[in-house]
């Protein structure tokens, strides 16, 4: 890994200060229809994959989106890149509404929003050379950089830390980490302003993962590209993103700057999530295991999500109100600016799990009793 990447001079985005909202998402919904019925097939229900979320990504910032599997992270990403047609809500990019824009209308901003994918194997066409893969987007958008596309591709390869001589190779000749770099180079080819990265490192080994995270970080900081960084690994998101949103079952339940979310989470789910991450305590061997909040059961089905607060079925603080009323995403007292939480009974702003919060699986509780008895 080169320590100093050769990058073109940072462009305006990096300098004009984070703050300008680049992407504004309001009330975004995506419901996948379920076909069924008898005797004629019709829509009988919907997977409420994304159910009304609001997000703002500012220019040049990295915005993290975390949550458990199936909570709608990828769907959100794909809605924003307009791979999917939103059911309702609005997406506006630099003030322009692109919610239902067609391919032709999107053409001018296609080059500004790019995507990096999770699977380094399926995200590269096995039948194209690296050169073709990276120059593809330029070709499509008719971009003819000075010095020709090939030169630009070689530059890009260099930027992502690959040998420019690999221009004529095929994807299968690369390791997972290298493929992911090719994916990054492809995304960079159009000099985008926003990159949606859908779990770009979760398929990689730890040692490789760090290489890619570093690369992305450099790209973000030095080229001033904004990121919507989707991941389920809280530690990676913490490392990469300045602001973080936590999703649960198609909804954003908490959003805020990194500091605030990781050290002063207010939503019980965020608490649970943070405490569930297994951690190596490198320093204090005697400290033993940190107490954890254990959530029972699994995420409910997005086809028929619980009423009111969606987390209530697994929440140890749930009361009748939670079932009746959906908590709005608001700033709670004691929270920083921009730290919004959707909870009727928020936690204290700490990450320590308290004794009374620790709930066990009923079965586990029984087991533990068993063990203690003899």
């Amino acid at each position, binding site marked *: 890994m080169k320590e100093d990447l050769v990058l073109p001079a940072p462009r305006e985005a990096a300098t004009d200060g984070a703050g300008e909202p680049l992407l504004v998402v309001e009330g975004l919904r995506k419901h996948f229809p379920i076909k069924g019925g008898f005797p004629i097939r019709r829509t009988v229900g919907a997977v409420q994959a994304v159910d009304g979320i609001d997000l703002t990504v500012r220019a040049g910032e990295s915005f993290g989106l975390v949550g458990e599997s199936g909570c709608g992270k990828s769907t959100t990403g794909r809605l924003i890149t307009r791979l999917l047609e939103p059911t309702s809500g609005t997406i506006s990019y630099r003030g322009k509404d692109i919610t239902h824009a067609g391919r032709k209308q999107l053409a001018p901003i296609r080059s500004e929003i790019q995507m990096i994918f999770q699977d380094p194997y399926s995200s590269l066409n096995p039948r194209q050379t690296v050169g073709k893969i990276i120059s593809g987007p330029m070709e499509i958008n008719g971009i003819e950089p000075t010095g020709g596309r090939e030169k630009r591709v070689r530059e890009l390869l260099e930027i992502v830390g690959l040998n420019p001589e690999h221009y004529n190779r095929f994807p299968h000749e690369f390791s997972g980490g290298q493929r992911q770099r090719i994916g990054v180079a492809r995304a960079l080819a159009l000099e985008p302003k926003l990159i949606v990265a859908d779990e770009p490192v979760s398929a990689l080994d*730890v040692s490789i993962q760090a290489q890619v995270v570093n690369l992305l970080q450099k790209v973000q900081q030095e080229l001033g590209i904004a990121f919507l960084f989707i991941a389920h690994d809280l530690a990676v998101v913490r490392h990469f993103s300045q602001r973080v949103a936590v999703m649960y079952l198609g909804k954003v339940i908490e959003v805020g700057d990194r500091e605030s979310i990781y050290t002063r989470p207010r939503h019980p789910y965020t608490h649970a999530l943070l405490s569930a991450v297994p951690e190596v305590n490198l320093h204090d061997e005697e400290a033993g295991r940190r107490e954890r909040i254990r959530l029972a059961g699994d995420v409910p089905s997005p086809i028929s999500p619980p009423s009111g607060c969606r987390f209530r079925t697994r929440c140890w603080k749930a009361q009748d109100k939670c079932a009746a009323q959906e908590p709005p995403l608001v700033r709670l007292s004691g929270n920083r600016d921009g730290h919004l939480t959707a909870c009727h009974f928020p936690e204290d702003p700490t990450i320590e799990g308290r004794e009374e919060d620790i709930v066990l699986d009923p*079965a586990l509780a029984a087991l533990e009793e068993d063990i203690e008895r003899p």
Partner: protein
Amino acid sequence: MTTVTKEAGAPSPADAGAFLSVRDLHVSFKTEDGIVRAVDGLSFDLERGKTLGIVGESGSGKSVTNLTILGLHSPKFTTVEGEILLEGKELTTARESELEKLRGNKVAMIFQDPLTALSPYYTVGRQIAEPFMKHMGASKKAAWERAVEMLGKVGIPNPKERAKDYPHQFSGGMRQRAMIAMALVCDPDLLIADEPTTALDVTVQAQILDLLNDLQQEFGSAIIFITHDLGVIADMADDIMVMYAGGAIERGTTNQVLRSPQHPYTWGLLNSMPRLDSDLSAALAPIPGAPPSLLTPPSGCRFHPRCTFQDRVGGNRCVTERPPLAPDRASACHLTAEQKRTIFVEEIKPRLG
């Protein structure tokens, strides 16, 4: 092509406490493209009731090692050399029928992907009951009851009914619980868990880890816990073995390996791993390069092409000579013990914050 130096001081087989001991294990596969040396000179011991964590990158031979213990490779394409002693009994040369008696009974296994690892055609209860019938000679009814009981034990609500379900009717976490129930149904002495939580969400992973911990206390089995997540292993293991390219490169208690690691690869792992409490101002320090191909493994120390401390060894030893792994607390590296200590304390530790 590669000069392989046999490990000088492999742990002696006479080690009385060892419940399972693996000696100089080599496993290679014949493939279209050549011979893949998936495990190359691996030795370790495991005591009763203890948990051995095996960490390593993808393709480092973790799964192969453990499948070999159970003799689950097709003999036609696989060559196994070395010894695997379970309670002093040699397994590599054991007859299939003897292995059958062991599998699921004394030694049980949990696989990584519970969806593909459970048969879609039979009910969960039946799949759990089968080994119980086979090994314990239980009647169908008794085995079914046992299966329901086990499902209850692993925390599946309403086990009586759910036992009649098929795996695809279970959620990911429940499937993994069912796998665990299946593995534990005959009260095994050794449980091999091959990345049992990798496919799961953190919250579910935490549930499963707790479950395994508690079950181990109840059943008293020894566990081999395979993972690539150091955080998980810190939670689970008594001892840790770090594998790289088919061999072990460091071994010790959890405390030793995590808090005073001695091998550049382990350092690299720790350095490249983002943690919730790590210093945000410092960038992650990845291990450069990519894991080697097992078809043409690097000569000498397998790690040398990616190692940043090679120059400190001096000479060409890293390239020509494969470092041995001493018994007990050990690391397979040509750096001197002193060098290792100082490098860790002075260069690595500060970066870990």
